[in-house]
C-alpha cells in the first residue's frame, strides 16, 4: 500500500489490509500540504522509482511456510505481515525479497539428552513462471550446558531486531511506557546474567563482547520515533 496523502489518513486502520495479506506499507508523509512544486516532484520521483522496483522484483505467489523443529522447541509468536493458519504454518499470498519475518521460539522440555537441535523452514510457492516449488532451509545448532557459551554466541543485530518487534506488539497490547521499560529490563537482565556466570575481577558494569553494542542499539531504539513518549 502506497500512501501519498499529505494529511492525516489514519494509517493505523488502513494499514491492516497489508498486514494480513503479506503486503507492505510505504508512506511518503508530507504531514501538511507540500509547499512547493519541487518537493512534490521529488516525492513523485521517489514514488516512480519505488513502483518500478515493486513491479520488477522477483516474487513468489500463493505461498505457505512451515517451520519444523526438534522436540522440545515450540513456536511462541510470529512477527511480520502474513496470516497465521495454525501453530507452525503461515500463509503468505506473496513472497518478496523486501519483507522479513521473525519467529520467537520457546523451550518446553529439558534438552539434556540432545547435543544438537535442528530447524527446518520450508516454503511452498509458485514462482513467476508458474512452477510450483518448495525451498527448504535447514539449520542445526548445538546444545550447550554452560550459559557462558550461549552468551558468547549471541547475535546482537538479531536480538535488537527481535526486541524492536516485541516492543511493537507490547505497545499495542499494553502501552508504550511498558514497551520502553521492557526493553530496558532486557538489557538489565542480560548484564545481570553475564555477571553471574563470569564474575569479573573489578567492579563496574560488565558485558560480553558479542553483545557489547546491545545497550547502544537499545538506547537508539528508545529514542526512535516509534517509541518516543
Amino acid at each position: 500500500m502506497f500512501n501519498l496523502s499529505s494529511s492525516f489518513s489514519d494509517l493505523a486502520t488502513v494499514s491492516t489490509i497489508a498486514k494480513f495479506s503479506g503486503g507492505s506499507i510505504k508512506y511518503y508523509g508530507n504531514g501538511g500540504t507540500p509547499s512547493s512544486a519541487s518537493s512534490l516532484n521529488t516525492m513523485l520521483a521517489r514514488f516512480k522509482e519505488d513502483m518500478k522496483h515493486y513491479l520488477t522484483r522477483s516474487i513468489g505467489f500463493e505461498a505457505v511456510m512451515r517451520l519444523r523443529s526438534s522436540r522440545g522447541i515450540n513456536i511462541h509468536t510470529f512477527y511480520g505481515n502474513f496470516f497465521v493458519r495454525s501453530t507452525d504454518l503461515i500463509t503468505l499470498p506473496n513472497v518478496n525479497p523486501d519483507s522479513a519475518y521473525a519467529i520467537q521460539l520457546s523451550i518446553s522440555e529439558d534438552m539434556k539428552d540432545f547435543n544438537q537441535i535442528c530447524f527446518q523452514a520450508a516454503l511452498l510457492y509458485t514462482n513467476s513462471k508458474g512452477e510450483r516449488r518448495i525451498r527448504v532451509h535447514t539449520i542445526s545448532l548445538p546444545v550447550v550446558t554452560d550459559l557462558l557459551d550461549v552468551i558468547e554466541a549471541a547475535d546482537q543485530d538479531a536480538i535488537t531486531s527481535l526486541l524492536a518487534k516485541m516492543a511493537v506488539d507490547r505497545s499495542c497490547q499494553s502501552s508504550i511506557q511498558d514497551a520502553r521499560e521492557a526493553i530496558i529490563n532486557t538489557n538489565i537482565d542480560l548484564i545481570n546474567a553475564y555477571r553471574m556466570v563470569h564474575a569479573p575481577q573489578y567492579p563496574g558494569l560488565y558485558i560480553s563482547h558479542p553483545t557489547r553494542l546491545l545497550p547502544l542499539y537499545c538506547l537508539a531504539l528508545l529514542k526512535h520515533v516509534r517509541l518516543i513518549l
Partner: protein
Amino acid sequence: MGVSTRIDERVYAMENMKSMPIKYLMLYIYPNLYPLHYQFDLVTNPPIPLQLSFANIDRNGVYLLDTYDHLFIYICKSVHPQFLADVFNVTQWSQIPDECEQNTTTMGNTLQRTNPPQVNGFIPNSGDNQPYSPTTLHNNNENQNHNYSHEANQLIEPETKSNTHLMKTPVINLPYFDNPTSQRIHAFINSLIEDRPFKPNFHILR
C-alpha cells in the same frame, strides 16, 4: 517528555520495524554517519561510519546521515569555501539551498538544547555512550538527542522551502557539477541507494 509525534509517522515506523530486513532495520534504528569533507575514494578509501555522538562532528565538516528512509547532508559553518564552490556552486555558506530556512525560530522554541547551536538551523545531535566494555549507562546524556533527526523530519517536511535545484536524478536534490568532489559524492550516494528497494527522502541541512 513534551515531545509528541504524529500518529501516522509512529504507526508507519511500527509497521516498518515489523517487516523490514535486518540489514535495513539496523540502519533505521542506528543510522550511519559518513564524513564527506576529506578526500575519499569509493574503492580504496571509502568513508567509514562514525559513532553517533556530537563529539564526532567537526566544525568544518560535511556529513551524510543515512537512516534508510531519509538521507541528510549536513554542512557545518566553517566548511572550506572550495568545497562549497565545488559541490553547490555558491561562495557563501548562507547561500546553500536549505530546506530549513523557515524553521530556525520554530526549532529554537520547540526543542530544548543545552549545547549552543553551532549552525543556523537543525543539529542532528546524537549523544550516545561508548560501546566498549565495561559500559556505564549515563542517563544525563539523553538531552543530546538522537531523535532530533526524526523530529526535524516532521518539522521540515510540512514547511519545505522551494530552493532545491532540480537535477538529473530528481530523487536526490543535490546539484551535480563536473569536478571530482561533486562526482565522488554523487557516486558515493548512488552506491548507497542503488540496491535499496525504496528510495530515501533527501534533505540538505546547514
